[in-house]
């Protein structure tokens, strides 16, 4: 078994761990650090449920090895709220009923967090395109688009 020592910052906290070289980043987050808010929907990079922010960019944690994030900075869904207070994007999801079963939601929140930073005043078409890599089986996406639009408006205010 090949192992690697890694140092990584996640949601502002520094972690030093030894990981099996073949362990995916998603499994590392979920199993080694018990950050189970990052979900696995397909493990082949299509569904987007496992999306996290890696140095500010939305990436799929099922397609990365933990060993690849040595020295990097990660944000997961657990890093969005301040204590119990939802951030504006989370609040918009709640207000606009942008989630049902909630399984795909962490991935969508992370995708949109990164997207809205780059594109603070998006059109609906741009939002749809931004989330086209995140599958949701419950909502039909309409309310997710509405939530993203509302969150962007709040942030611009």
């Amino acid at each position, binding site marked *: 078994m090949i192992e690697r020592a890694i140092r990584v910052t996640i949601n502002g906290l520094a972690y030093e761990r030894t990981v*099996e070289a*073949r*362990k995916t980043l998603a499994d590392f987050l*979920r199993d080694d650090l*018990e*950050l*189970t*808010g*990052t*979900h*696995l*929907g*397909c*493990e*082949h990079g*299509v*569904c987007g*449920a496992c999306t996290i922010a890696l140095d500010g960019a939305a990436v799929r944690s099922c397609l990365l090895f933990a060993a690849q994030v040595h020295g990097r900075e990660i944000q*997961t*869904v*657990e890093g*969005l*709220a301040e204590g*119990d207070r*939802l951030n504006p994007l*989370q609040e918009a*999801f*709640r*207000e606009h*009923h942008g*989630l*049902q*079963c*909630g*399984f*795909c*939601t*962490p991935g969508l*929140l992370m995708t949109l967090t990164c997207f809205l930073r780059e594109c603070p005043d998006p059109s609906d078409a741009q*939002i*749809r*395109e931004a*989330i*086209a*890599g*995140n*599958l*949701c*089986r*419950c*909502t*039909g*996406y*309409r*309310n*997710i*688009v509405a939530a993203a639009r509302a969150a962007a408006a709040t942030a611009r205010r």
Partner: protein
Amino acid sequence: MAGAVGRSVRRKEDHRLLTGRGKYAADFRLPGTLHAAVLRSPHAHARWGAIRTKAALALPGVVGVVTAEDLGAIGRIPVRLGQRPSATAIACLQPPLAREKVRYVGEPMAVVLAESRYLAEDALDLLEVDYDPLPPVADARRAVERGSPVLHEAIDGNIVDTLHTHRGDARAALATARHRVSESFAVQRHTGVPLETRGLTAAYDSGSGVLRLWGVAKVPHFNRRVLADLLGHPEHLIHFIELEVGGGFGVRGEFYPEDLVVPWAARRFGRPVQWIEDRREHLMATNHSRQQYHDIEIGFDADGRIVALLDRFMVDMGAYIRTHGVTVPELTAALLPGPYRIPNYSSEIRCVLTNKTPSGTYRGPGRFECTFVRERLMDIAAQKLGLDPLELRRRNFVAPSEMPYEVGSGSLNQKTVYDCGDYRSALDQALEAVGYEAARAEQAEARRGGRYIGIGVGCLVEKAGLGPWEYARVEVDGTGHVVVYSGIAAVGQGIETTLAQVTADELNVSPEAITVVHGDSAQVPFGVGGFASRGAAVALPAAMEAARKVRAKIVRVAATLLEAAAEDLVLEGGAVHVRGLPDKRVSFRELARAAVPGPPGMEPGLYAAHFFEAPKMTYPYGTHVAVVEVDPDTGCVRLLKYAIAYDIGRAVNPMIVDGQLVGALAQGIGGALFEELVYDAQGQPLTTTFMDYLIPTAMEMPAATEVRILEETPTPLNPLGVKGVGEGGSSGCGGAIANAVADALAPLGVSITALPLSPDRLLTLIRAQTATRPRVGLLDRS
């Protein structure tokens, strides 16, 4: 305080789900857990000898391999739903692990247990099996032919059941009908595909003898009993706990082979065992659905009124009969007549076994299929009769004055009796919502410009509120908190919120202040579960009635404490006061403590249970209208606009109702345009990843979606008047979208009789027409 019922109360579930704190099946952790991986058949049909496990067991970290031999005499998984299974159906039930023969790719043969999932999967590769492949049959139409390979030697051939429905004499009526229209239709194999795959953790406490399972869903109480029977373990020593459920759609929560093997292994090895399905497994192990072939004929009189409908169809059941038995075929026939008055109706069904994944229900089971068949047939008939398709529908709708209306069919051990409805109004509202006249004008304009825009309608009758009952208990705990315990199960539909709303109104507290408990067999002793759009129509009335009983107890205890007449008492904000004397009050907390033992003659404690019985289903209904544009060069269908008008009697939470309809619409669009579980002739599944099995993304949704929630006909079958909204957003999609595509391509004369209308299929149809005809319209494109 304004009532909570009828308001778009924000969901109680959301905070934990938005912060990543919800615990789904794969998020559950116990120390010392063994991880399971399942050896699945790579062959569609084969005999096989022993599994050689030596190399796998020699791998460090591998603890055991479970095969059918280890399970001993454990029986097959029984049918849960519908009519009593036939002897042939029972002969085709699935064993938890295969013995001697495998009948579909993905069939579980053995389970490896190891210290991690990585190691368990390594060990799978080291298991050796000698297979003796048999000729497979992957197509139901071939499986019924003489000389076709037979899956189950215990029955004669591959037809596991034949079902018949007769009202009047359809054949005789067709013989004398003025107009007869016949057609063949096919619906493809596809299924629910929740974003969370299945998963389960089991742990056995050898001291107390309690076997605990986490990650159960849909029908925990029923499945607990099945597990108790199969294991020969006392039911009261089995504890089921639901956790969060990442989508159900009918497929999750049925009793599958893994649901037996995982707890069996936990008991056998004395350590917790966790199994999490991966996506590839899911697409070949979890129930498939929907595959049917219809040969249908309809007859009309001179005025365009239906005189008879005769449908002979075949349902591809897959390799075994699973927990739904023949419910899906039965439901297809039960609801095929839809909103139309059909005096003579016959259906003849063959339920056929094939070497493919077994099938079960998927959101709107039977209704997605029959609505596509019927609504497409109505459009084809309208064209043949020279009538406007809307006019043909209007002439045949069952009228509100005919309610309750007996269809002459049946399902789930009851007759199909529509409780109430105004089908014409739903059609009119959907047309208004989509802007029908404007859309027709736009279509005409587009056609002149060589563009192919089409408009299609799908009218449907759904079913909801399946009983036989649901359980609820409401209590005020010793700190004054109101708790609702419900036998319903969550599938992501927001049931906690609506249960809280209904209870809140009875006790005049805020829904936010109410705790909802469900999916825990230790806390909720009885339950039926979450399926068949039954939450609002069956579980909510149970909670409402239980809350009323508690309210009576609250008033009784308060009357004693406050020395006031019951009719002078007011419940408000978690306390009771005397009308006009707000200081003369007593809190729920004080009342709960005083209620034990409470006033003489009262059953102690501020709690009450209620079983709400629902012997009859309710039948929500509505209309879908699709406006599409087809690109004749690529076969791509773009949804320009989509409208749904759907009557559910009463909306407890309009936001949630709207969400259900739009979410179901996405799945219906998938079924109409993209999703297909494809097999090759050898029975190999070709769609085992999300790169092959295409579910709609945000890009494929309609550019504009209009939802009209109708509350025109509250059902008389429950005190809330609510029907159920889980499925109607899907059921109309196949019909409406296929009719719209056919309408768009009418200038080319393309015949649309099969789903999905994926670009490749549509392009083949378009090319077949344009190759033999002058390129009308196409040449006009510049």
